[in-house]
């Protein structure tokens, strides 16, 4: 079962390269802390998912790289090749000579249709190399021009060409005080278009990751590379092989399908947040010990209190006792569905009953349907025990509301709209996007 990754724009390509790098170094490590047989199946499963064993000496990532400028792609390709342990295929990238100038409409209405055939040919080739196509994983940022506009267009093309495949969009939320003035317009347009074509949107907020780097990883001068590496670690902890409940004895052969089925069957609720503990600098790892009850307790409180990392959690927030939903405490984060992924030693005896508390979830879904757990005894990326939470909950309600609010204010004063109208995105299109997102906000608010 193989996943084809589509890296879009500068952000997408840089993150994608870090993700493959993290996956590769994880399977090459000897710190699996499990039996040789287990380790062997883990490595085989990961390789089948993300890499292609062609005639070359090193595994080739199953990825398509797309950008309008050549600089980032060539950097990405060379960094991968320099590692010596994996590389990208030399035929799987597409780039042009000029960029999109952070203009969403340029990416969506001009570059997209113009280069659709070339890009889809690359995707088709990658898809045909898979014995079993497990789905598409696209990586893009919401605020820029290429990643967001072209990315939305490419996702639509993927959906048209592969109507029954799973599409998971990884979206990077821009910094609140970002440099791009029209980033809120771009975000609104991207999110609403993606909502129609993809199955799920997995979101990482730049502000949050920045805080993790500063407070947990103790990095003084935070570069984009550090941020990308944290993101890559978190994504790896979700996508590396696990044993799922329905999967029989081996590693799951349908991770994207099972993720979608556990979290996003409802068409209106597609926004997923990701939390991962523990996170610490690599140098501190040998001096730390972890216990599963402690990790689970922290993860649960992070879920309930909408905390973004394991420091500074508000322990006062409690789930409501048996009172009707209209009286829910203000800061309590109601979930629709949660998926907990556990990796490491002694994972099979872990008690996850606290996550099956019905008060965590919305009234119309019971915990048997809403909660799932994946496990593997094989440790990930040198962490003896680690837990990840993928949650379809009100995590992103506030950020979404804030972005839509800011975009609406700009829209009401008709600022910068001519840039979009120049390429065919009219006011009605904006209004449609606002309607879609308002509907999403309202659905999530009324849980």
């Amino acid at each position, binding site marked *: *079962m193989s996943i084809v990754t589509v890296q879009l724009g500068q952000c997408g390509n840089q993150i994608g390269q870090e993700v493959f790098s993290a996956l590769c170094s994880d399977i090459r490590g000897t710190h699996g802390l499990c039996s040789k047989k287990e380790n062997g199946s883990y490595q085989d499963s990961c390789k089948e998912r993300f890499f292609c064993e062609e005639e070359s000496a090193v595994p080739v990532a199953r990825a398509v790289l797309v950008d309008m400028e050549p600089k980032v792609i060539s950097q990405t390709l060379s960094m991968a090749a320099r590692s010596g342990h994996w590389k990208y295929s030399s035929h799987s990238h597409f780039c042009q000579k000029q960029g999109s100038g952070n203009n969403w409409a340029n990416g969506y209405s001009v570059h997209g249709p113009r280069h659709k055939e070339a890009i889809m040919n690359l995707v088709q080739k990658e898809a045909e190399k898979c*014995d*079993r*196509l*497990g789905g598409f994983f696209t990586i893009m940022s919401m605020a820029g021009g290429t990643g967001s506009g072209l990315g939305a267009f490419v996702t639509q093309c993927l959906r048209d060409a592969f109507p*029954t*495949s*799973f599409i998971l969009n990884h979206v990077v939320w821009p910094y609140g005080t970002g440099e791009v003035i029209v980033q809120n317009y771009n975000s609104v347009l991207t999110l609403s278009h993606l909502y129609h074509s993809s*199955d799920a949107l997995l979101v990482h907020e730049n502000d949050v990751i920045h805080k993790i780097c500063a407070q947990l990883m103790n990095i003084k001068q935070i570069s984009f590379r550090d941020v990308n590496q944290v993101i890559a670690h978190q994504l790896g902890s979700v996508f590396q092989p696990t044993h799922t409940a329905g999967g029989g004895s081996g590693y799951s052969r*349908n991770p994207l*399908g*099972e993720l*979608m*089925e556990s979290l*996003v*069957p*409802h*068409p*209106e609720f597609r926004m997923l947040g990701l939390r991962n503990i523990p996170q610490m600098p690599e140098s501190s790892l040998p001096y730390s010990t972890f216990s599963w009850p402690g990790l689970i307790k922290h993860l649960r409180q992070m879920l309930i209190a909408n905390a973004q990392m394991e420091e500074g959690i508000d322990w006062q927030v409690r789930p409501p006792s048996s009172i009707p939903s209209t009286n829910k405490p203000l800061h309590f984060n109601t979930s629709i569905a949660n998926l907990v992924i556990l990796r490491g030693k002694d994972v099979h005896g872990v008690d996850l009953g606290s996550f099956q508390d019905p008060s965590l979830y919305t*009234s*119309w*879904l019971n915990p048997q*349907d809403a909660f799932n757990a994946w496990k593997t005894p094989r440790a990930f990326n040198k962490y003896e025990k680690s837990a990840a939470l993928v949650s379809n909950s009100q995590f992103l309600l506030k950020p979404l509301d804030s972005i839509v609010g800011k975009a609406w204010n700009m829209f009401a004063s008709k600022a910068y709209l001519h840039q979009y109208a120049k390429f065919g995105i009219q006011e009605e299109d904006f209004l449609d996007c606002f*309607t879609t997102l308002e509907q999403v906000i309202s659905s999530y608010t009324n849980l």
Partner: protein
Amino acid sequence: MRGQRREQHREQHREQHREQHRERGSALPAAVGALCRALPPRARPAPDTLRRARFDRPQASLDFWKLLYVLLKQIHGGRWTESDAIGAQVSFVKWALWYHGYGRPQLQRLPADGSAGSRELLLAFSWLLHSPGLLEQLLARNRVQPGDQTSVCTCGDELPSSQEGTSEAGPEERVDVRYLQWLNGRLRLQWCSLHAQHQEQCKLWYKIHLFTSGSHMDQNLGHFSVTETDLIRQPENYKQLLQLLDSETKQLEAFLEWKQLEPVYWQWMETVLDNMAEEGNMCESQNVHVEKRRLPEATPWAAKLTGQMDRLSRDLVALQEHLHQLVAQRKAAWWEKVATREELQKERFSATARKIQESTELKLRGLTSLCAPKKKMHGLCRLVLRSKHPAGRMGFGQCGSKEAVAAVSAAEVITELQVREASLQRELQQLRQQCRHRLDGIAEGLEGVICISP
């Protein structure tokens, strides 16, 4: 005088009977033996069982119930274990015989602990051999599989009518519509996963067929099946495969032998029937009315089925009457028109008559093609790769199911299914339009509500 003649006649009859009995005596064990060997290995009765059943020995009843249970479970694709209770066995056998159309009430009246009735069971067993073709079905089911089979079904949709159940939602069980949407989404996602799995399977089959093409002895096939390829990769499994093939061959040979000796068996069964007829007059049936009550509870859907059939026949009769009325009305109207136009010139009339005839022929042809039973394919088919065109189309080969489907090309089935898909899409669009209209109508009635349809 007449009495003497009758006496002689009866004596002759009995003499003939005894002679036949002696001849049959030697052929019958052979026939029964062949029959037992043609049954699947784990479901063979001791040849003695049938003989004891003929004399209605109670000891043979339990064995016979078990035999029928195992055989019928195999036909219905169910699972069974050695420890299934006799009560469950008895009820299942009774249900299965009713399902296949065995209408003898004495069987349904047999006790549920399986302690009596071996002769009834013998009758039922013989009936199964004849009517639903028990042996043939079992042999077809237990064949050694080549491994690259897929199922084909172009039967018409048997969806229940849409009028059913629209107003049946009880007020006690309010389900949140979001939960239903959740479940619907899960179903769709699971279907997508299944689709991906099928595609993978087809891809791998294609690889196997392509790589082994040209290697098979049978020129018609041209390539290996999955089982054969597996054998090449793991030769040490040949013993198991050989055993299976051996057992299948022996069963088939026994079946052929049985077919030769079958008439002997049926003659013997006739004597069993005669005996039963003689004895049957002596015991009265008292609980006839109990039967009607017991059957529906064994099969919960049987009542629904009969209800649907009743409704269908009533609808058909009503439609027929309606049609008759319409035809009569039309005819009367036409005759009037013709009567008022009798003065038309002959040529013009014949020209119009010809045109009328042509158009009716066209319409009839259209009707017959619509109503003609389409070639329905249903069952398992083995996939065979044919390279008629350079692209290498796949073709279907022999069929391993009850209905013998002749070799069909995959392209044909695909086009037929695409046509059906298009017509179902059209129907879906129509239904969606209807729903939209209904929603608009409802929204107009509500104050201050705007309805935005998806």
